[in-house]
C-alpha cells in the first residue's frame, strides 16, 4: 500500500512537469501577451520595458527554465495582469469555486442516488419514466443557457434569490467561506444548481443502470429468498455493489465540475478560479494559467488516488487483482 502511494506521488511530479511544459508551449503558440497588455499607443521603448518587466524578452526555453527553478521553491511566478504571485491569486479564489463544487456534488449525489435507485427498482412506473426524461433534459441543455434561465425566473421574475455574485464571507481556518451563513447560501444556490444539473442527470442514469443490472443477480435473489427485509437488501447489498462504478464516475466528474464552473462563474459573476482562468487565458496571463492548471491537476490526481484507494476498499476482487 505504501509503495503504491509513493509510486503515485512520483508519477504526480512527472505529470505536473509535463502539464507545465504543455501550458507554456501552448500559450506561447497562441500569441504574445505584450501585444494585448501594452497600451496600443505606446512606443517601442514602453513595449521593451514591459517585456523586460514581465520576463518576456528572453527566449521561451529560458523563460521555462527560470520558471522551473523558482517553481521548485514554491514560486510560480507573478501574474502579468495583477502583479501579484500567481499562486496567491489562484488560492485566493479557490474557496469560492470549491464551495460551488461542493454544493453541486451534494445536490447531485444527494438527489441523484435516491432518484436513480427509485427509477431502477421500479422501472415501469410513470414517475420513473418522468425521472429519466428529466435527466435527459439535465445534460442536453447547455449550462450557460440554463443559468440565464434560472436567473430570469428566480431573480428577475420572482425576486426570491439574488441574481449574481457571492454572499458575505466569514473567515474559517484562514479561508473565506460564504456558504456557512443563510445569506451566503442564497447567493450560492442558483449557481450550484446550474453546475449540478449535468452531474445529477449522469448519476441518476448510472445508478439506475447499475441497479437494474444488480437487481437481477443471483445474490440479490438469494438474499430475498433468505427473508432479509427489502430495505436491508437494497441498503446494504445492492448499494455497496453499485458504489464502485459510481465512485469512479463521481471522482471523474469532480474534475469536470471544476472545469465547467468556468461557465457558471461567468454567467453568475461568481468570483472563483474558473472565471479568473478564462480571463487569464484570453489575456495570455501565462503565470496564472500555469498556476491554475498545476493546482487543478494536482487536486485531480489526489482525488483519483483517493478513488482508487476507496475502490480497493470496496471491492476485494480489485485488491486481489492488484496484488498479483
Amino acid at each position, binding site marked *: 500500500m505504501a509503495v503504491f502511494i509513493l509510486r503515485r506521488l512520483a508519477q504526480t511530479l512527472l505529470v505536473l512537469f509535463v502539464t507545465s511544459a504543455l501550458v507554456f508551449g501552448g500559450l506561447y503558440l497562441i*500569441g504574445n501577451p505584450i501585444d494585448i497588455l501594452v*497600451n496600443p*499607443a505606446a*512606443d517601442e521603448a514602453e513595449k521593451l520595458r514591459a517585456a523586460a518587466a514581465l520576463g518576456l524578452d528572453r527566449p521561451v526555453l529560458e523563460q521555462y527554465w527560470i520558471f522551473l527553478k523558482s517553481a521548485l521553491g514554491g514560486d510560480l511566478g507573478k501574474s502579468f495582469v495583477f*502583479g501579484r504571485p500567481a499562486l496567491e491569486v489562484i488560492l485566493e479564489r479557490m474557496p469560492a469555486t470549491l464551495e460551488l463544487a461542493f454544493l453541486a456534488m451534494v445536490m447531485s449525489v444527494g438527489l441523484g442516488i435516491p432518484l436513480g435507485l427509485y427509477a431502477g427498482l421500479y422501472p415501469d412506473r410513470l414517475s420513473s419514466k418522468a425521472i429519466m426524461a428529466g435527466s435527459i433534459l439535465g445534460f442536453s441543455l447547455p449550462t450557460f443557457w440554463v443559468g440565464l434561465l434560472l*436567473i430570469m425566473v428566480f431573480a428577475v421574475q420572482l425576486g426570491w434569490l439574488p441574481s449574481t455574485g457571492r454572499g458575505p464571507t466569514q473567515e474559517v481556518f484562514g479561508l473565506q467561506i460564504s456558504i456557512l451563513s443563510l445569506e451566503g447560501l442564497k447567493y450560492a444556490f442558483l449557481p450550484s444548481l446550474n453546475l449540478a444539473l449535468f452531474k445529477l442527470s449522469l448519476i441518476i442514469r448510472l445508478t439506475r443502470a447499475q441497479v437494474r443490472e444488480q437487481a437481477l443477480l443471483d445474490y440479490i435473489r438469494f438474499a430475498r429468498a433468505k427473508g432479509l427485509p427489502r430495505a436491508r437488501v437494497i441498503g446494504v447489498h445492492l448499494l455497496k455493489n453499485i458504489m464502485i462504478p459510481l465512485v469512479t464516475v463521481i471522482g471523474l466528474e469532480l474534475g469536470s465540475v471544476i472545469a465547467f464552473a468556468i461557465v457558471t462563474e461567468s454567467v453568475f459573476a461568481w468570483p472563483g478560479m474558473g472565471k479568473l482562468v478564462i480571463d487569464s487565458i484570453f*489575456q495570455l496571463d501565462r503565470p496564472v494559467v500555469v498556476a491554475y492548471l498545476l493546482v487543478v491537476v494536482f487536486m485531480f490526481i489526489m482525488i483519483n488516488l483517493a478513488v482508487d484507494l476507496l475502490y480497493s476498499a470496496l471491492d476485494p476482487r480489485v485488491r486481489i487483482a492488484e496484488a498479483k
Partner: protein
Amino acid sequence: MRKFLLAALATLLSWPAAAQELSIALSTPITSLDPHFHNLSPNNSMSKHFFDPLIKADERQNLKPGLAESWKAIDDTTWEFKLRKGVKFHDGSDFTAEDVLATFKRVPNVPNSPSSLAIYTKPIKEATAPDKYTLRLKTDKPYPLLPNDLSGIQILSKKVAETAKTEDFNSGKAMNGTGPYKFVEYVSGDRVVMAANEKYWGPKPAFAKVRYRMIANSPARVAALLAGDVQMIEGVPTADIERLKKDARITIASAVSNRLIYLHMDSGRERNSPFVTDVAGKPLEANPLRDPRVRKAISKMIDRDAIVSRVMEGQAQSAGQLLPEFFFGTSKRLKPEKYDPEGAKKLLAEAGYPNGFGVTLHTPNNRYINDERIAQAVAQFLTRSGIPTKVDAMPSAVFFSRGTKLEFSLMLAGWGAETGETSSPLRSLLATYDAAAGMGTANRGRFSDAGVDALLGTAIATIDDTKRGFMLAAAAEKAVGELTGIVPLHYEVSSWAMRKNLAYKARADQSTFAFEVFPAK
C-alpha cells in the same frame, strides 16, 4: 385597511427604497487599485474616485481644472501650473507641489507593470516646484498634448509615492488620496466599496457609500439591474436597450464616445496580400487594396445606417472621420460616406477590377461591442457589391498577435482616443510606421503617405491650439477623405442604465464615476 393593502402592494411592486448606498455594476473587472500599475480603462476610472489628477476632463473630454487651478505654456517647451490651495489628503495632510514631483518620479518605475503610464511622463524632461503651489515642467520638444496626458496621472502624497508598493494599494494601506471617495474594501474580481470624503475640495458626492460590483457577463448585468441587486449598470448591451427604454422604472443615459470602429486594409504590400483572392478563390498576385479607389469603393459599399440601426440597435453614430465632430482636431468637411453600391462598382472597374475580387475579413470576437456581427454585416454588403467576403472571427488575444505580425489583409478594429483629440488616432493608425518614434504603432495596414506624415508631424509640435486644429483636420481630410487609409464605420455610443431616481451625465470617454451620479430632480 385598504390603504395598508395598497401600501403593501406598492412596496412589493417597487424596489426597496434607495438608501444612502449606491450600487453599480461594472462590465470589466479592475486588475489593481494602484493608479500607476496598469494603464487600463477600468483601473483608471476607479482610481479617479480615490485620487485626483492635476487636470480633469468633463463628459466631452474638455479639460477642466483639477488639482491644478490653471496652467499655461510660458514658451514652446515650458509649462507652468498653479496648484489648488487648501486641498487635504484623506489622512489630513496638505497637498503641495512636492507631492506632484514625487508622483512623477514614481510613474515610470512601478515594478512588474504590464502597461505603465510612463508614456505620459516621458515628454517631461524636467519638473521643478518654484514654490509650494507652483509647478514648472520643461519638455524636450514642443508638446501640446501635455495637459491631456496629465489628466491621466493620479497624484499621490509624497510619502505614498516614495514608499508604497502595488500590494499596499490593493490592501488599502496606501489608499490615501485627495479624491471624493475613501477606500473601504476591495475583493479582487468581485467588488470595490468606498465611503464619501466629507472634506472633498470639489462638489460633494451625493452618496455616502458606493459599492461597485464586477459583472462581466452582459445579460447577467442587466438581470442584476432588473432584479434590483444593483441600481445602475454601465455597458448596456445593445440587445436590451429597447426593452430597458420601455421599462418605466429605468432611465438610460447615452453619449457618443471617442471610440471609432473601422476597417484597416493592407495597403503596404505591393503584391500577394495573404487573404486576397480572385472571385473564384485563387490567390491573387496583385494587391487591389493598395489602390485608394478600391478602398474608397469598399467604403461606398457599406450601408452604415443599416449597421447602426440593425446591428448596433441605434447605439452608434455613422462615422466619416476619426472622432465625432465636437472633438478637437476634426474636420467640418468630412461626412460619413453615403451608401452608393453603383458608385462603388464604377470605382472598382476604374481601378481595374470590374469583376471584383475575394477577401477574408478578420475580426476579434470579444473586444468591441458586437464586433463579430458588424463584421458579418460588412461581409454581406461587400459580397453583394462584387467582393465575396469570408469572415474569420477570433479571440482578441489571437487577433492582435497575428495582426501585429501583419498576417491579415482586411481587418475590423476599434480605436478609443484617450486624449480626446484626433492626433491620437492619426498618429497610431495612419502615420507611417516608426516603432522608435512611436508612430503608426497600431497601423496594421501599413498605410503610408508623406503628405499626411508632414501635416501630422508639424501639428503635434504646434502649441497654438487654432493652428494645430487646422492641421489635424487637414491631415484627416487627406488620410481618410482622400486616400481612405482606413474605412471609418461608426462611433460607439455608450449607455448607462439606472433607476429612475438617479441621473448621470453620460461620458464620451466611457468612464463610470460614482461621484457624478446624483439623485434625479
